[in-house]
């Protein structure tokens, strides 16, 4: 009788440990995914000066656009870890870069330049990477929230302090209308 109780409690301990480990692994994935978004945003910050230098020679009359991009970049870099300031700043920077590329369409000599094409590809790729990093972050959050709320795990999640994570959603206030 004692042996059966002992075996049952050992099994139960293993079970609890397995649930705890799974929750920890998923939560770490969520946190890593968040810092990956950060990495891609910083990469975009680093590419902007190259872009501005590359187009400066060709787009002499577009100084306003170039200044807008530079200003948005310094703002985004200075916005700090507070999300409510950071997300709008990053979206502003994305909009400014997009505006710059739209204006660059009017300069065929610029468009044909080899290093501009490479830079354009790099920045387009960075935008994609930011988007995919957000997608992966949301995927991880979805998985973590699901596991944490479904049956055997939800009994223990509260006891161990695993709270649901928030999705990265663009709320209405973040959608910034580009100034013409």
């Amino acid at each position, binding site marked *: 009788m004692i042996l059966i109780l002992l075996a049952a409690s050992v099994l139960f301990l293993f079970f609890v440990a397995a649930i705890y480990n799974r929750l920890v692994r998923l939560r770490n*994935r969520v946190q890593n*995914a968040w810092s*990956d978004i950060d990495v*891609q945003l910083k990469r975009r910050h680093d590419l902007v000066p190259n872009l501005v230098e590359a187009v400066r020679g060709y787009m002499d009359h577009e100084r306003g656009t170039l200044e807008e991009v530079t200003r948005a970049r310094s703002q985004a870099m200075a916005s700090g870890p507070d999300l409510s300031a950071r997300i709008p700043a990053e979206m502003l920077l994305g909009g400014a870069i997009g505006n710059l590329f739209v204006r660059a369409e009017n300069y065929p000599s610029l468009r044909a330049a*080899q290093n501009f*094409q*490479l830079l354009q*590809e*790099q920045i387009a*790729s960075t935008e*994609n*990477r930011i988007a*995919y*990093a957000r*997608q*992966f972050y949301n*995927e*991880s959050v979805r998985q973590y929230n699901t596991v944490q709320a479904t049956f055997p795990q939800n009994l223990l999640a509260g006891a161990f302090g695993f709270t649901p994570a928030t999705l990265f959603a663009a709320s209405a206030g973040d959608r910034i209308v580009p100034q013409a």
Partner: protein
Amino acid sequence: MTSAPDAAKPDATSDARQLGPRDREAFYKAQSRNRRATWRMSALCFVAALIMGIPLTLVLTPLVYALTLATADVINYFSPLPPEFWTTVNSLGRLAYSVADYFLNHRGTLDLQTLGAGLVVMLAPGIVITFILWTGVLALFRRGGVGGTLASLNAREPNQGDLKELQLHDVVEEMAIAAGLPVPHVMLVDSSGANAAAFGTSPQDARLVVSRRLLDDLQRDELEALLAHLIGSIGNGDLRIAFTVTSVFETCGLLVTLINSPFGKQSRGTLWRILRYGLMRSSSAGAKSAEAETVAVLLTGCLDMGDGDIDRFVNNPKKSTWRNFLFLVFLPIIFSNMAMEVTLWFFFTLLLGPCMALLWRTRRYLADASAVALMRNPDALARALKRLSQAATDIPGGAWASHLFVVSPKGDSSLNASRSSGEGMQTAARAWVESAPSVAPSATSASAPDDFKALRMEMNATRLAAMSGDPQAIERLAAFARAMGAARGIQVPANMPIAADIAAACRGDKTAIARLQALGGESRQNEAKRGSTGLQAQSSLSFHPSLKRRLRRLERMGASYSPEAHGKKSKAAVIIMSVLGLIIGPLLLAAAGMMLVVIAMLVMLNIMIVAIWLVVIHGIFVLLGHAHA
């Protein structure tokens, strides 16, 4: 569709895109469905392996026993073994005999314990040996991985200065970020085939090989979709599965090589190479994986029937008494080898091979669904697959691991058949007109590309002229073949059989026959060099699902619906196919049944021959022992 409001009905016929496929499926659902299917297929493979294992063990075990007992006899002759040894052997033999008796002649009764012990005695050695070999193969190849030859032979790093290759590098990184995996190492191959594959043993050391032609043919989002498929499959653990599947084939190959080794240089050379590879301390991962793949090719090549050392030994026309003596002494090994070859061939091609192919197909579907999950865009993958169905997808050096590619390297014509042949005829017509000699007599080459009837008559006339030896006609046919090849992106070999040679050979011209034979031999050699033996050759079912089926699944996930992709089969064709199936099906089953009977007889014969051989050897040693004493 049935619940569409009345107001939409007038639009239904005008815009087919609105309706789409009836059975939509979210990609999450598709993914979990395919994962469950994987479990089912793995169970099927396991059962198939067990079924195959039974005749194999029955062949292997008597051989093992015979060899051990023969060596025991030899040792006993020089220094007597303890009597407990012989009493154990005796009791084991009696046990096995009673169990076999019970099964075959239904004589006597058996209790469960005796039955269990008897089965263990009869089946255990083979199982244990195969298991040990398998673990050895797994450990050996875990470091090398698959696909080393391709990566080390003619692959290069992408050049970051070139726009398309920079795009490739970026796309791979984007997809790796979307999947949450470490970025796999990307290599480019400059070949005329358009294909891509993922190699490696785990997500941490995965490698992608992409052909340059793929970059030129596809747009950025289509390339992204293909790479999403590959990276998705890496993330799902397909590399591990491929590794396990390959290891099963390699284990059987190793078994055959071990049995063959006393007989010939080839198997001994293979064993030596395996040993060298195991002890290799090379720091370069590329060289190591290249060596791994060479060893693996050698091992799976052993599974081809009729080519092993023992067969060469048996078929050797040189007859000498020494050879006959060796034949008699090693008879059980030779016979076991033959039985094993037949068993392996039969079960691999018809049972285990197709099961693994089905398993692999499920993983391909899963990778497709994962690609949609990563990109959230099923259209791109559908477009990429459609484009690849028209291109040549063969990459030299990759035939051994052909199951790892995105699209089957042998090409897939399941879509072409249903497409209207107008396009094909147009291409052919243009190629024909192009191939016309520049100094054209006005009578023959005045036909426009649209006049198919005239063109066909022209082609027939040229063909007849070529068969009777007209050099101009021969030249035109060759140019036509080259033009068609260029249109489809295939490289036509320069020494294609000339029509005149074929005609002359038909009439019995010996030199023409010799030339054609040489060409045939050369092409077979080329194929062997490219390694057309491989996992695909061992299975009667293709490892790749047909593109049509993949596109259909993508359409269920939301790719845009295109009616021409679904060919309509006429009722007559369906009826004819089903009648043929009903006739041929039972015939095939009967043939398979006969093969099974043959294999059972071989196994029985093997046991008998081994037993007789053993008795003879034992008798000889007993006599010698008596004479000695």
